[in-house]
């Protein structure tokens, strides 16, 4: 099972992205646990400078918002 972390800030576009990730995981039956991370200290440990960002099993796989097709390609 994959551990997916969505690094987000509190702004609307970020929250929307997090919901999309959850949706994609659910719709495609991807075996993964999705968690939203908004604590700045934890975000900085991943060394990202633009939000939202996507971390799978401790590795940053995407920076900036992605659409559904792109997400699917990344998460599959």
């Amino acid at each position, binding site marked *: 099972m994959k551990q997916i972390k969505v690094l987000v*800030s*509190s*702004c609307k*576009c*970020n929250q929307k992205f997090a919901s999309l990730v959850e949706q994609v995981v659910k719709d495609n039956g991807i075996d993964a646990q999705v968690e939203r991370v908004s604590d*700045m*200290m934890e*975000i*900085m440990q991943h*060394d*990202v*400078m*633009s*939000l939202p960002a996507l971390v799978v099993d401790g590795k940053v796989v995407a*920076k*900036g*918002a*992605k*659409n559904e097709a*792109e997400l699917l390609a990344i998460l599959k």
Partner: protein
Amino acid sequence: MIQQFADWLIYSLCGLDPATGIGTALNFFVYDSLKIIFLLFLISIIMGIVNAYFPIERLRNYLQSHRLFGLQYLFASLFGAITPFCSCSSIPLFIGFVKGGLPLGVTFAFLITSPLVNEVAVAMFLGAFGVKATAVYVISGIVLGTLGGMVLGCFHLDHLLSAWVRQIQAMSSHQAGEWEAEKVSFGHRLPSIIAEAWRIVRGVLVYVLIGIGIGAAMHGFVPEGFFESYLARDNWYAVPAAVVLAVPMYANAAGIVPVVQVFVAKGVPLGTAIAFMMAVVGLSLPEATLLKKVMTWRLIAIFFGTVAAFIILSGYIFNLII
């Protein structure tokens, strides 16, 4: 071409008289909306392409690993101009720079220019005021970021950062991280760049339409030279007043430019208008509250004060030269 379409739609199809206020207003609305949306889409695509090849991590590594003899301020400011700015990212960005051991002044140079010169502001400016005024706006925005960063760097303000940021600063490493280029071909990248550009357009569309709507109404009904008496060129306090008025306003550039355009058409000098614009997009209260996470109020006040002073100064200069 867009003008002809607007003329045809409003005057021929709807049968409104060009001499009436409502006719002029509607024509202006249709023409301006189409033109600005088109420009915004185009510029977002161009910036998206630039960004795909020069992501922010690459800039940071470059600044960390090269001795630039003062040019680092200009570079940070230039990159601030071409990176799309979302205020959500300002904190991770700030920390990322600090963590990389970059001087605070360089970080500020980036932080000043990034919201000031962004794709939305540039597209709106281009649509409203033409190429010359846009060039003046962009160049002065970059110069302002460079000088602002230098001046703030001279003040040695590091002790005014929040405690946890200073901890990160103490542990910062000057070793540049490895920047891995994503090996994706241009053809594969373009669709997502276009999708992103469209996302930007859609995100501000409502504000653009509202802004142009207000602008159009004023365009049709406020008489020429109306504002001249209040905000005229020889009024020494017009520029600082415009700047002070602008800081609490958090209309994004999209909403405010069409209104400012009408101000200029009705007699407000362009320099005053540019200063107002810069203060609206560059300095805002929501941004200040975001920055509170990484800075003390004193540092925020110094930061805003310095930038505001520079904006006022450039407003006076524009009024002299344009």
